[in-house]
Each structure stands twice: as structure tokens, then as C-alpha cells.
């Protein structure tokens, strides 16, 4: 259970993952925010109207995946680093996953790194596609990784070889 482990269960994740049908149409955000805390920067960062205005700042984010184009503006604005962007249409075999990553050293494009699940367990190797660390991201770089489609919903972090 999330409240005692810190790891969202499949049931938790099912609530925030868009349908496979939506995922087959292109990139969209996965907002892993399961607790009513006073926080709304995801809404203020969103330019497409897919993260709806909060009636109460303690509400959970209300995401319309059909309006989201996966632009990733919210990813580095979320204080909880709870947002990733998943593109299942990246290639035939691979999905592209964009995650926030606040550690050094940063990986480099084409580097093969370990893909970790939500418990930090190494699941498979993933390939770094892009590293964005612009000033606008304010030290929360966004790493794009290519992940085998079977693991795309499981991977949520990376570890560089030591």
C-alpha cells in the first residue's frame, strides 16, 4: 500500500494511466499524484488546458489526456517529481519515456543505462535519447529514454553504471 511503502500499487497506477487506446495515439503525461496535498504548479505550468484548474488547491490533478500533447512543461515544475511523459508510438519496439532527473553526473545521449522500477529495482537496460537541461528547467533536467514497450509502464528511473 502506497501510504506505508511509498510505492504506488498497480491499482493506484491504473487510476492515473491513460487508456491503451490513448497511448497508441502519441505522447501524454502520467501524473503520479495520489495524495491531496496543497499544490498546483502542474496546472499553472500547463499550456494546453489538459491539467484542469484546481477548485481547491488540495485537489488531485485532473488530467484530460486527450488534450495533452506531451509537451513536458509540467514535468520539471512538479515539486514532487511525480510527472513523466510516455510516448508509446516512438518506434515499433520502443517507447519513449521522459523523466525528471536531479542527480549528477547526467547521462549522455546514446548511453545505455539501467532502467529502474518504482522501487528502484533494476529491470532492464534502456537507451538515453536526449538530455534537456535548459535554464528554464531550473536544475530539474528531463531525460528521454527509449524503453522496450513491455517495460514502458514499469520503468520510472535510471541508474548510471558506477
Amino acid at each position, binding site marked *: 500500500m502506497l501510504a506505508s*511503502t511509498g510505492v504506488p500499487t498497480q491499482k493506484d497506477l491504473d487510476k492515473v494511466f491513460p487508456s491503451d487506446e490513448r497511448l497508441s495515439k502519441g505522447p501524454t503525461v502520467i501524473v*503520479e499524484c495520489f495524495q491531496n496535498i496543497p499544490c498546483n504548479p502542474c496546472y499553472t505550468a500547463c499550456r494546453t488546458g489538459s491539467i484542469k484548474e484546481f477548485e481547491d488547491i488540495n485537489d488531485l490533478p485532473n488530467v484530460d489526456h486527450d488534450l495533452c500533447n506531451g509537451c513536458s512543461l509540467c514535468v520539471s515544475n512538479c515539486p*514532487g517529481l511525480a510527472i513523466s511523459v510516455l510516448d508509446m508510438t516512438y518506434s515499433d519496439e520502443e517507447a519513449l519515456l521522459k523523466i525528471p532527473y*536531479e542527480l549528477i553526473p547526467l547521462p549522455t545521449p546514446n548511453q545505455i543505462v539501467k532502467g*529502474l522500477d518504482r522501487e528502484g529495482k533494476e529491470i532492464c537496460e534502456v537507451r538515453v535519447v536526449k538530455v534537456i537541461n535548459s535554464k528554464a528547467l531550473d536544475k530539474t533536467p528531463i531525460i528521454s529514454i527509449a524503453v522496450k514497450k513491455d517495460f514502458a509502464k514499469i520503468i520510472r528511473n535510471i541508474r548510471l553504471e558506477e
Partner: protein
Amino acid sequence: MMPVEILIIGGGPAGLCAAIQAAEMGSKVLVVDRNNSLGGQLVKQTHMFFGSEKQYASTRGFDIAELLLDKIDKMDNVEVMKSTTVLGIFEDGVVTLENNGKYIKIKPKATIVSTGASEKNLAFPNNDLPGVYGAGAVQTLMNEYGVKPGNNVLMIGAGNIGLIVSYQLMQAGVKVEAIVEAAPTIGGYLVHASKVRRMGVPIYTGYSIKEAHGKDSLEKAIIWQLDEKWNGIPGTEKELDVDVICISVGLSPLSELLWQAGCQMKYIHEFGGFVPARDENLQTSVKGIFVAGDVAGVEEASSAMVEGYIAGMSAASYLGYKLYNMQEVKDDLMQQLNSLRHGPVGEKIRNGITSLMIDNEAAASIDAFK
């Protein structure tokens, strides 16, 4: 004796916002802080803040400190005394300070106490070994001076501070072996917990430390599972090779000055200890003494900032300063505070506040809001 209009004791998030608001209304403000720089614990916060835009959400704590300090710098009517400790608030209204061995007496017309809070300790065998730190000390060493506290850490407490400091330790290249939390569930925001979990740090809920071991400094920690009465269960011990134990089991308000000033104090468990009774303008039972931030009840820095603005406004208006749209500004601040405390995580805070509210005789001295 130095004449002072509004004295603000403590230049952390609450004190800085109080200074900004009071000065904006035209009053002369003196901010006194015992440290040699202002900003309080904000300067050690490397994570993005929660809340809404008005409380600088998604800006990092140390950047917020800079924003507030920039504002203070530009205000001619704010004077700052750093490395200055307030020694006492006396019944005739005299406040005594120490600066660099010099003893100073002042007589402020109003005082805002925003002294913050200090770390609680935890009793376990050998908890006095070098290597056992309060979480704040680890933050200070690591984020202010760039010095690692050690190499392998056991974090005690999975509240927001325990979770955030664990994450910060990993960012500084220090390994966090485990986080233990005596309660059956994680106390801090779950997004913080998920963040450290996916970096591979285990969180043991229903666990606590049994004892620490080491000769001249910490070498080992033993943790064990707790039963429903919070007693350790023999046979469940786990041994961890750690050279750092970081204690984050809550904070307790630094309220000595309020006691001395004769403010009515109440023990509120949810707020970390004894806190001052106050009215909605944050005036205590002693006329002219206002409070803001953790000393008024341990909470998040976002609410400390909003409380600071409110206390600053109340103190200035107590001295007769006004704003043309004061009621509007006050309503907005009250609304911000309410919404920060509105959700389920604010429930404890709401309960605490209710039992602290007084219909203050002194409050009648603030007529500006009526």
C-alpha cells in the same frame, strides 16, 4: 535606549515576510537574527516548494530566500541586525540583545516573534555518539557548507523532513541505507516518498531504532519492528552498517521568549509542543506581541510565509499604519492560509489552531480591520 517601532525576532521565512509587509505599510522595522545571514532554514532547502504561485510554488527554497532578501534590501525602512541574539523580553517592554559581546537595550512599540523551531531528539541507547545528528544539522553541513556528514545514513522518521533530507543526501552523493518510521504509515508527502523509493532507498514503516553502536563515533545501528503498542519485537532486529544516523522525528517551537514575555501558552501535540494562544491577527495574549511561523506551531514554510505577512500587517496596523486596500489584502492572506490548511494533510493543523484561538482583549487594539 534605541527607539524601535517594530522588532522582528528571527529572519526566516516568517520574519522576512513580516518585515516586508510591515515596511510596505510605512512602519520602521528592525529584524534581528542570531545568525550571520538571514533566510533561516530556507537557505538549506534545495527542493521546489509546494503550494501555489503566491507562496512561490515550484521555486526552490534557497531561491525563495533570495527573492525575499532582495525585497528587504530595497526597503529603506527595514534595518537588519545579524549575529545578534535576543536575550530577553521584559515586562516593561524592554528587549535586550547581544551583538558581538555588546549588550544592547531596545524598546519596540510592537514585536513579532518568529524564532522558528528546533529539532526534537529521540531516546535510544548510545544516541549521544558522534555521528548521530538532527536532520537540520545534516542539511546545514551539506547544503550550506558543502560538507558530507558521512557515507552511509540511517534516517529516522519519514515525515517531510526525513524524506527530503534523504533525497538531498543522495543528491550529495551519500548513500541512504534505510528510512525507518515508527508509525504504520509515511507521515510526509507521498510524492517525496516515491521519489526516494525509486532511487532504491527502503522505507520501513512500523520500525524504529533499537540501539546505536560505536567506540568514538557511530559504526552501526540496529533497527527493529514495533508492535501495535510501539514496543520493539525481539527477533526482528536488522543490523545496518552506518556512520550517520539522522534524526527527523519532528520539531518543537523555540518559544522561550514568549514564555518570558508572559504570553499565554498551550500544549498542542499537533504543533510540536507549547505554542502561544493567539487571535486571528496572530496577536498573542500580550498586547503588541505577535507571532508567525513555526514558533506559533510547526507547519510548512509556505504557511510560515503567509503568517509572516499577516503578523506584519497586524503589527503595523496596531501602530496605526494603514493600506488603502488592507481588508482586501488581509482577506486574500487569510484565504491562502485556509486553503494551504484545507486538505486532509492540514487536518492536524486545523485542529491545533481551533484550540489555540483566543478572543483577545489585546486584539481590540487593532481596529483597522473593522
